[in-house]
């Protein structure tokens, strides 16, 4: 498998592919992984900090097994080969058998990240990572925590004048200026493109003064200023004078939704970039939180807060943090040359979210700083890559995909994910990435699980078998009962540590600590020589505990754990002491203090490892069957992807027909035929030998844990009989969908001329002659039932435009008026907005405080959306009695006048609400719900298809309203994640988990209540303290290892393995006494 692009999407795809036991080449053009996400300071709407570049060992939001564990230097997934500074030259062959030619820039493999080369380098260049806000040396590292974490050279011709100072100073002789570019050919079965996007360069639009006015910056530059790893360490300051800004403006749609051809290439970007509304809101909110008394002002056309929790985020920014939103597009920026302040002119009175009294006069305002919210452009290498791979690009230069196969390019076997297909945010990129991985897995089903390697203990699956094949891992030595024999290895890291800390002296100190039988200094512990030395010493000296004083255990622990394991030692009998990041590097000015601290840290490590015990993981043969709940487009797509990959699937559908909401979609804006998609999916499901369908069935019970779930499916047989079936399965996909809500808003249900948007679609599809006879159709957007949470249903605007365009095609003389709050046509869907306007559809905006009023003539009843005034009994139908007109009144805010419309038909875009059984299913599966009532995933951005509970995955509009193509991507993503579980043989469970000593447990429920994941339970089949019935049990397959229960347990009956009180306390107890020594 070849994955091109090492950003967040490419990394996710590589991890999924690797976890499914396939080989992954991760190719990245730049010298480091991380992509655009690595440059962000914080994510919306969670405000998670992105310091770790998306590559730290947990991902985001304290969610243990997440995106990144596999992507660390020295802790790389064995199935992934990372090729940075590498370009793809050509790709021959066909799906399942490609030959790809790669070209790689020289690598400095022995770099230990000490930075001496950059210190002596005389050439400075603008830092790309910091968006040109600072300079960096010609030989440098792209970011503080680059992956691979090493220095590299910009292309020689570009900057380096070959003074060779870097070569002389390098302690490991890693720098080699004469190394040649290498070419390499690899054979892969499938290719995944994850090359992301390029931010628009606003220099091409002179009117904004970017590049001329110092205080006009791009949103990416603002991200760097706000980031803790940025040039100002998170302090936002004006570039012109370093003052903290008091008034900042964000201008939206710079290089998006713009039909003008700009720049040398004269390219227009009429599409919406989909991410800018939210990132600008995030930046403004962060400014409000951190800069005292700052005014934040966003100039936007529509606020496109169309995803889960986004609307709440936007209203929070507006109402709680006081971010000002004005609806207009600023046409130019002027600068006061004396102060470098910036002047903007805009119409007043066009505020967001409030009653709009009408447009006020044009005002001019002064700002300290203006941020240009730049749009998404196709990636730099799009054309070259398209040629090398033979794929087609679309009219905007992004990768061409089809509506119903959103992850497939024009070349079979080449898949695409993320922003290269269309502008996308992180969460959707991750979904695409896992989905593209699933497509690749389907193609390579014969090889699934063939490479059973893991980065974590026990390092390989099916250990016994591989043991024979590789001879790598011998049996583990049982050290129980042995007196601790500790070996301490202090690494000098080629000077990174040893230049500050007196490492040999630290080793000598360690030799005198209790139970230490061997201590020595190694110049490079993590190099092959160092590792071999540790392995040999462990065996020869019969060490049963190993302490390595080197760098952070976050980056290198698994490397040394593996080394210990190769020496026959359980990996949890090793301990790392952080002498680099947390000692030498932060105390360079105080070598004596640093050496003293190093000794103290080593003593802590030794005290901590002495009472350590071996920890083993339990093998579990997973059931190779998946349960898919919901038979709509998402459920069917997921079921097919899993079944095609060679696993059995039980598909449970509540109704008596497969298809779900797809039954009510007759055509789509893009022109494809959804009914054909429905037929195809249903036919393939029915014909598939691995899929068992359970119709008119519901899941009523769901127990067990990953790899070993047991569910009860209740079917309503004809005649009312109820049949219950038990199903064993290894993974579950939740794809139960959602529904168009219904309520008596605006006279719906009172007058047949008021219909839901889906009913209008049915009318257009089945009775176009009625449309032809109409003179005026009004549509009202954003209609939700009384009391329902306020969120954007995402698909309605495009649906409405699709119907409006159809009406105009059928009957160009029919007036179509759309009453809207914000038009949400994100991405390329913007073209339907343009087309509707071109065809003469009228758009009138309303606000929450000033909604349209619909007067239904019979009965004489005025209905607004403010209060429910719907009578219990429906009135007489007006049809056939020459009905009098419906009147719609709306306050038009630009002219400040009330419009009165008399449409023949009103179509309401009703909100999409969670399915009726969502809550009961959430209870049965023990999964949480979001504030909107949809299922709540493990992490909004980084784990959108996972639940906290391993082995259960989410797909489709059960997550949040979505378009068909998005449902398909999502379903594939869930399927891909499920396959990574199903293809493991066996799974290993346990490790660093909490265990209960039942003999001490009083069954007080403290652990049950304090666990953030709801995992402990009191089992009546267990005997607690004094032999009384009932004691706590924590499922090792589900425990997340946070240790909260162990701290809370009043009886001290729970211990977290590897963090037992004895280990922590014995270490902490040493802090008080300083190490006294002579220097």
């Amino acid at each position, binding site marked *: 498998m070849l994955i091109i692009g090492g950003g967040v999407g490419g990394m996710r795809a590589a991890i999924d592919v690797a976890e499914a036991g396939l080989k992954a080449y991760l190719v990245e053009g730049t010298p480091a992984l991380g992509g655009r996400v690595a440059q962000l300071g914080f994510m919306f709407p969670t405000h998670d900090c992105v310091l770790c570049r998306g590559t730290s060992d947990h991902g985001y939001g304290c969610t243990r097994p997440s995106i990144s564990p596999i992507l660390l230097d020295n802790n790389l997934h064995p199935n992934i080969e990372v090729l940075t500074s590498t370009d793809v030259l050509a790709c021959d062959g066909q799906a399942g058998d490609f030959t790809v030619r790669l070209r790689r820039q020289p690598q400095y493999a022995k770099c230990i990240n000490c930075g001496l080369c950059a210190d002596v380098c005389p050439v400075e260049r603008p830092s790309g990572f910091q968006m040109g806000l600072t300079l960096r040396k010609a030989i440098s590292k792209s970011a503080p925590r680059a992956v691979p974490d090493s220095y590299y050279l910009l292309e020689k011709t570009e900057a380096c004048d070959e003074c060779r100072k870097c070569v002389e100073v390098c302690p490991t002789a890693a720098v080699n200026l004469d190394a040649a570019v290498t070419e390499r050919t690899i054979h892969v079965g499938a290719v995944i493109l994850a090359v992301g996007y390029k931010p628009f360069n606003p220099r091409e639009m002179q009117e904004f003064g970017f590049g001329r006015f110092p205080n006009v910056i791009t949103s990416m530059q603002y991200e760097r200023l706000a980031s803790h790893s940025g040039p100002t360490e998170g302090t936002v300051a004006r570039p012109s004078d370093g003052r903290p800004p008091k008034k900042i403006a964000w201008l939206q749609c710079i290089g998006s939704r713009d039909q003008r051809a700009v720049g040398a290439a004269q390219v227009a970007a009429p599409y919406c970039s989909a991410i800018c509304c939210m990132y600008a809101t995030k930046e403004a909110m962060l400014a409000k939180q951190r800069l005292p008394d700052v005014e934040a002002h966003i100039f936007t056309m529509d606020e496109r807060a169309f995803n889960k929790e986004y609307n709440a985020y936007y209203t929070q920014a507006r109402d709680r943090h006081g971010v000002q939103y004005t609806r207009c597009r600023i046409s130019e920026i002027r600068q006061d040359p004396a102060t470098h302040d910036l002047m903007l002119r805009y119409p007043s009175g066009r505020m967001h979210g409030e009653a709009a009294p009408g447009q006020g006069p044009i005002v001019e305002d002064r700002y300290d700083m203006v941020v240009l919210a730049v749009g998404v452009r196709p990636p730099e290498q799009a054309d070259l890559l398209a040629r090398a791979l033979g794929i087609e690009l679309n009219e905007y230069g992004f990768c061409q995909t089809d509506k119903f196969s959103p992850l497939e390019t024009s070349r079979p076997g080449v898949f695409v994910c993320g922003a290269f297909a269309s502008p996308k945010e992180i969460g959707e990129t991750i979904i695409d990435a896992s989905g593209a991985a699933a497509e690749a897995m389907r193609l390579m089903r014969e090889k699934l699980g063939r490479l059973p390697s893991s980065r974590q203990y026990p390092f390989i699956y099916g250990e016994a078998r591989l043991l024979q094949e590789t001879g790598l891992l011998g049996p583990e030595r049982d050290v129980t009962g042995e007196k601790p024999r500790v070996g301490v290895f202090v690494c000098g890291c080629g000077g990174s540590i040893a230049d500050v800390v007196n490492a040999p002296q630290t080793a000598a100190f360690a030799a005198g600590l209790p139970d230490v039988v061997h201590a020595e200094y190694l110049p490079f512990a993590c190099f092959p020589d160092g590792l071999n030395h540790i392995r040999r010493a462990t065996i020869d000296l019969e060490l049963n505990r190993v302490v390595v004083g080197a760098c952070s255990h976050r980056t290198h622990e698994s490397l040394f754990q593996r080394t210990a394991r190769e020496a026959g030692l359980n990996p949890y009998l090793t301990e790392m002491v952080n002498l680099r990041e947390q000692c030498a590097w932060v105390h360079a000015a105080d070598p004596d203090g640093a050496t003293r601290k190093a000794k103290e840290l080593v003593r802590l490590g030794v005290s901590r490892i002495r009472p350590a015990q071996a920890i083993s993981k339990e093998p579990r043969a997973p059931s190779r069957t998946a349960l898919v709940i919901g038979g709509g487009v998402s459920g069917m797509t997921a079921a097919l992807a899993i079944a095609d990959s060679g696993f059995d699937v039980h598909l449970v559908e509540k109704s008596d027909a497969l298809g779900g909401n797809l039954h009510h979609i007759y055509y789509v804006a893009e022109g494809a035929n959804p009914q054909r998609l429905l037929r195809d999916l249903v036919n393939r499901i029915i014909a598939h030998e691995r899929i068992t369908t359970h119709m008119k069935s519901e899941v009523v019970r769901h127990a067990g844990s990953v790899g070993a779930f047991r569910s009860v499916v209740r079917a309503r047989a004809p005649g009312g009989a109820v049949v219950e079936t038990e199903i064993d399965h290894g993974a579950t996909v939740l794809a139960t969908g959602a529904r168009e809500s219904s309520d008596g808003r605006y006279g719906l249900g009172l007058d047949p001329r008021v219909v839901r948007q889906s009913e209008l679609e049915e009318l257009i599809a089945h009775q176009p002659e009625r449309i032809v006879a109409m003179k005026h159709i009004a549509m009202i957007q954003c209609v939700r039932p009384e009391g329902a949470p306020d969120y954007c249903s995402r698909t309605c605007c495009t649906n409405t435009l699709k119907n409006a365009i159809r009406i105009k095609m059928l009957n160009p003389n029919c007036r179509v008026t759309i009453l809207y709050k914000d038009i949400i046509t994100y991405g390329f869907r913007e073209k339907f907005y343009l087309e509707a306007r071109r065809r003469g559809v009228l758009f009138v905006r309303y606000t929450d405080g000033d909604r349209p009023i619909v007067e239904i003539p019979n009965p004489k009843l005025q209905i607004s959306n403010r209060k429910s005034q719907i009578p219990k009994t429906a009135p007489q139908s007006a049809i056939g009695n020459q009905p009098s007109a419906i009147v719609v009144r709306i306050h038009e805010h630009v002219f400040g006048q009330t419009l009165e419309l008399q449409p023949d038909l009103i179509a309401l875009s009703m909100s999409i609400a969670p399915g009726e059984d969502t809550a009961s299913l959430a209870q049965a599966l023990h999964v949480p719900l979001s504030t909107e009532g949809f299922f709540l995933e493990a992490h909004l951005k980084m784990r959108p298809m996972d639940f906290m509970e391993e082995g259960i995955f989410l797909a489709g509009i059960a997550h949040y309203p979505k378009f068909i193509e998005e449902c398909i991507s999502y379903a594939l993503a869930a399927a891909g994640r499920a396959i990574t579980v199903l293809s493991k043989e066996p799974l290993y469970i346990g490790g*660093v988990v909490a265990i209960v000593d039942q003999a001490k447990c009083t069954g007080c429920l403290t652990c049950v209540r304090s666990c953030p994941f709801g995992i402990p339970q009191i089992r009546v089949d267990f005997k607690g303290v004094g032999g009384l019935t009932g004691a706590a049990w924590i499922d090792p397959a589900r425990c997340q290892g946070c240790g909260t229960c162990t701290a809370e347990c009043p009886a001290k009956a729970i211990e977290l393995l590897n963090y037992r009180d004895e280990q922590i306390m014995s270490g902490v107890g040493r802090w008080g006494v300083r190490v006294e020594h002579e220097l």
Partner: protein
Amino acid sequence: MSENGFEPNIVAFCCHYCAYAAADLAGSMRLEYPTAVKIVELPCTGKLDVLYVLRAFEDGADGVLVAG
């Protein structure tokens, strides 16, 4: 170190996922702080037992920092 020569001995209990990672980053960025700050890694600050804090004080810590 203050004028009177007193340097408080500080034990910092850091969550593996955030504060400990931030401390690593501080190293990567070559920021500086006193050597008297020593970091104890925990899997989550939820793991912090009040006994750990008391034990640190008992054994002579002048300050305890919990970061997570």
